[in-house]
């Protein structure tokens, strides 16, 4: 009993997140009949999967005490590069997807190099990188929303296996993998160590710089993968399709109870945050609230989440 109580106390932010999203889901389905139908739940699951996959990177970066603001244009670039490399042909995906993922990871490495090796503040470095990526893509595409996607991407992102959306399967697999990495591997421990105290990590023999570099690279990879999957789900591309993820990934991590100073939090929390955000936006549009009101509410939710997670951080 005591153990159970301790468990609840320790994981309070995560459990609150899950409870909130469940409560929100009940409210929406009462307001809007059909919202909780199997078909619609599948759509929600896909939305969650994409936000969840992008947030993997943001979670790792925030755990080290950093921040990745370059996600939007890594995300968008990945979609465009995939379309350019594959030329709309499904056979070309065999080499296009690996190349695109490599480029995305490379974009992350660019951030990581600036933050880890040149000591540039993560906010400035990733904000600048975001502009560089945006500028490069605008220059390359000439601002045209061209781009045809291979049919296979739509099959992958929209399809499902015996009723369960492919994307949900991909997301759950990645979630389990990332939780194992965070709790069971040396790399995971290093991430928490670097986020808790850089100095102590350094004197414990942890390669702080390389750990930082790695989390930004993973964040680029996560954003790129999500961008590719998102493009497939949409069946088309547009410049600025990743913009919303700058705020929502941070919010998802913050709602999940992670400390934005680093060192505290876990991916189970981020999953709770992801569910909360997706269901919340469903609720807001169910009430026919305009984007303006949604934006205001997001602001307050972000503030509230950070405020609540201020002192008590999660254990991993």
């Amino acid at each position, binding site marked *: 009993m005591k153990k159970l109580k301790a468990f609840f106390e320790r994981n309070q932010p995560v459990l609150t997140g899950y409870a909130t999203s469940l409560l929100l889901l009940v409210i929406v389905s009462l307001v809007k009949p059909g919202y909780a139908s199997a078909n619609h739940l599948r759509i929600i699951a896909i939305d969650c999967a994409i936000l969840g996959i992008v947030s993997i990177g943001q979670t790792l970066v925030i755990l080290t005490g950093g921040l990745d603001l370059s996600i939007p244009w890594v995300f968008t670039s990945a979609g465009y590069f995939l379309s350019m490399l594959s030329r709309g042909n499904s056979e070309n995906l065999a080499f296009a997807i690996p190349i695109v993922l490599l480029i995305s990871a490379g974009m992350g490495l660019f951030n990581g190099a600036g933050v880890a090796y040149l000591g540039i503040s993560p906010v400035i470095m990733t904000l600048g990188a975001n502009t*560089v990526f945006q500028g490069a893509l605008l220059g390359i595409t000439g601002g045209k929303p061209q781009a045809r996607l291979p049919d296979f991407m739509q099959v992958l992102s929209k399809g499902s296996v015996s009723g369960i959306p492919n994307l949900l399967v991909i997301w759950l697999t990645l979630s389990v993998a990332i939780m194992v990495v965070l709790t069971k591997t040396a790399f995971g421990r290093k991430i928490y160590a670097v986020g808790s105290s850089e100095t102590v990590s350094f004197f414990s023999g942890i390669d702080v710089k390389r750990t930082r570099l790695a989390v930004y690279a993973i964040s680029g990879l996560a954003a790129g993968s999500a961008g590719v999957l998102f493009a497939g789900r949409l069946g088309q591309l547009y410049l600025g399709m990743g913009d919303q993820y700058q705020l929502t990934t941070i919010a998802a991590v913050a709602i999940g109870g992670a400390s934005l100073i680093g060192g505290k939090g876990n991916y189970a929390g981020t999953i709770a945050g992801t569910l909360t955000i997706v269901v919340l936006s469903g609720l807001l549009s169910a009430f026919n609230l305009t984007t*303006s009101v949604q934006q205001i509410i997001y602001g307050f939710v972000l503030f509230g989440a950070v405020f609540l997670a201020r002192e008590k951080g999660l254990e991993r």
Partner: protein
Amino acid sequence: MEKGHRLSRATRTRSARGRIIGAKVGIISVVPYAVLLAIYGVILFLQPKLFSLDWLGLKTNDAMALILVSIGQTVVMIQGGIDLSVGGIVCVTNSIAALYMPGSLTGILLMSLSVLILGTAIGLLNGVVIARTRLQPFIITLASWSIWGGVALSILPIDGGEPPKDFINGLLARPMGISLSLFAILALILVWLYVKKTRFGVSVYAVGSSEKAANLNGIGVGRTKLQVYALSGFLAASAGLFRTAQVASGSPLAGNSFIMTSIVAAVIGGTSLSGGKGGIVGTIAGAFILKLIADMLVFLGVSTYWSTLCQGSLLIFAVVMSSVAEMAKRKGFEL
């Protein structure tokens, strides 16, 4: 360019070394002005006709809103913070001014005053929350940006509004053939040179160098934070007003581009990201660089789609330069 202030011993502890105000002026601090001159030189080489006070006035009007926002951003950054809410404040003030500005002179003055008060109040609120909760300024102002951007969108869902002629002509006036904005910049520099030496100015630098040391020296750290964010809000609101006149219209998304560019202008101008170092004169040069780069690309026949890349690369270049300089300094070289 930054002259040393006499601060007490404690501020000059070794941990703060290299960031104290009294740091020697090196070659690196001349870079922004050299870059600005070079860009101006290229433009004049390509278009010699543009060597005129008229064109300069036009460009200053063009850059004025950015300059105002960037000055606020610079002061916040010197204090060690960052202000992303300037985006939301410009959006809101631009929308309100474009939509509700009355035609009469008293109406214009009262409306402008209320808009400025609104901006200052928003900034003050940011400052209070940051000082009280001790959360990172980045997150607080990010939330604030989202909120006020949303408010702007509900005031003015799409671009529009027609500010009165007198308001536009007033702000874009050219007494003696020189744009009002040129005078304004001159005045801002003079005010800054004075403010830097006041209690407030010294506090901003001291808090940015080391909050602990500032606190031990009896500087009100919380109060200084309130002041810089309020100032930034006030300047962002002024930028919103000026943009209303300059564009003669309102846009609920007008402010978003200012967030990035104001930070870039400050960084290019030599303001340190870690606080305690920098000044607004460099920032003004930085803002002009950003504006003139787009012109230069046009005159060079390069597609404007590449100008975003140029701005971003310039920021990365500037931060890399300043971080390399910092590293070199730690190893004993003076750049």
